[in-house]
């Protein structure tokens, strides 16, 4: 059951990721990215991260992608034009990318030769209680700094996007 769920959602993630790169219209790419994020949330659940799976769905697939879709709608951007550089990049880029993936797969196989398999329910430390405990004791300073970061981001977004009033 674990393997079936993993293979199903990994396949969905990879197909949606390829679709994101291949599609020329940004709204198709945005919808594929939502597919990737949803299937990654299921994989987080399989790895025992229930809090992070919920945060993935709410923050990423919910809030951030709504921002993206809203911007695409606001700018009314159409499909992009094909240039000469795109075909050149395809001939050089795809073999380089395949080589990069091959090197990473070799390193992963070498670093984890006989790692144990992932069993659903073997790790139950990812609950909201455990994460809250760690965040508010050991990681309290980074947590407070991120709140300042969010505040600065809000101010920056408002300053950048507002209309100039003379």
């Amino acid at each position, binding site marked *: 059951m674990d*393997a079936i769920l993993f293979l199903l959602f990994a396949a969905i*993630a990879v197909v949606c*990721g390829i679709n994101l*790169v291949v599609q020329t219209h940004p709204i198709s*790419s945005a919808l594929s990215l939502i597919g990737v994020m949803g299937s990654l949330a299921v994989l987080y659940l399989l790895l025992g991260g229930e809090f992070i799976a919920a945060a993935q769905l709410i923050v990423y697939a919910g809030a951030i992608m709504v921002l993206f879709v809203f911007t695409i709608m606001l700018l009314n951007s159409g499909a992009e034009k094909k240039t000469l550089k*795109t075909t050149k990049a395809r001939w050089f880029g795809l073999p380089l990318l395949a080589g990069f993936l091959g090197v990473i797969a070799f390193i992963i196989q070498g670093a984890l030769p006989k790692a144990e398999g992932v*069993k659903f329910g073997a*790790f139950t430390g*990812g609950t909201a209680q455990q994460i809250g405990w760690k965040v508010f004791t050991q990681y309290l300073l980074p947590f407070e700094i991120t709140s300042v970061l969010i505040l600065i981001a809000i101010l920056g977004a408002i300053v950048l996007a507002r209309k100039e009033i003379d």
Partner: protein
Amino acid sequence: MPELPLPTSVPLSWYLLLSAILFALGIAGFLYRRNIITVFMSIELMLNAVNLSFVTFSYKLKQVDGHIFSFFVMVVAAAEAAVGLAIILTVFKNRRTLEVDEIDSMKY
């Protein structure tokens, strides 16, 4: 019904390989696409791939720290999306284009 040749538990390296594949797809989108919004979405795909690696290693080490790192990555990604999309709006307002090749006034 014949027994499928599937392992009962998924090897840990498969999760890392999936993370590597998604990261490579993010790089490809970042370099191929000419639309600035799609380029930005490819960055989000790369951040997601790294998050999957964090959660996988968190499982391997039986520590919750990896979850907290990926939680911080999500927070930073949210801030980055807000500021980045505001910048894209400003660029479009000034130049009437979203093609990254045409936004090159700092090159000359």
